[in-house]
């Protein structure tokens, strides 16, 4: 196994794990004694998750070496998920208010 590729995979895993640990900080900074509603936490949580999904696509699933069509398709998919998740969150909040 090429050591450069090996090192890159390790760096990607470290990055993804750090982003996961960032949720603990996000959770801790958002609440004092009780969980409160927060659009900032929600948008940040979804954005971090989608960024992680894109990194998994490109690095672990090797999409960065794939034909351009698959690169564009997976990026479009991440964008589609973002629109669906954020859209339904804000739409739901608007309907209730």
């Amino acid at each position, binding site marked *: 196994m090429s050591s450069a590729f090996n090192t890159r*995979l390790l760096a990607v895993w470290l990055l993804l794990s750090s982003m996961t640990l960032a949720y603990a900080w996000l959770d801790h900074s958002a609440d004092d004694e009780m969980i409160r509603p927060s659009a900032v936490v929600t948008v940040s*949580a979804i954005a971090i*998750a989608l960024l992680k999904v894109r990194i998994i*696509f490109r690095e*672990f699933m090797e999409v960065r070496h794939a034909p351009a069509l698959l690169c564009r398709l997976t990026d479009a998919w991440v964008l589609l*998920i973002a629109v*669906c998740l954020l859209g*339904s969150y804000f739409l739901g909040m608007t309907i209730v208010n």
Partner: protein
Amino acid sequence: MWAFVLFETLVFTSYFVVYLLFRAQHHELYLQAQANLDLRIGIFNTIALLLSSWAVARCVQASRDGAYRSALTNAFMTIFFGFVFFVSKVLEWAKEIRMGNGFTTNEFFQHYFFLTSIHFLHLLIGFIVMGVVIYQLWSPKRRSQELVETGATYWHTVDFLWVLIFALLYVVR
């Protein structure tokens, strides 16, 4: 396999949309119920699955380079970290049920148990897929890089679907 990956992602995204819309209707209930989940367990589970994804990516690369012993080791590591997630998830379910948070307790826990169970089913299928990958890698006569990569793509799908589920169940407010 990529058509399956994109289709599965769409199916899960449709459910996430339903979950977020329901959540907005009963925001307080969801927040109170969510407080019963332990974020640390969610983080531990996520890191375990990320480790398994890392191992299966190494398995693909090793197999491509003809380093089949290393590929097999990494395939076993993938299953091991997947099993860590498996045990942790079962223990978390047992903990929640002991605390009185079952499938019928409230709407949040209905979504929680439904989403985590469907994902768990995907994980179980992933074990079978990795078993096939190991079976193929074991003998020089059966080795197929295409099959190893297809199996890895499925395993990564199990991983990134969990990344989304974790954010939506444990972190969003």
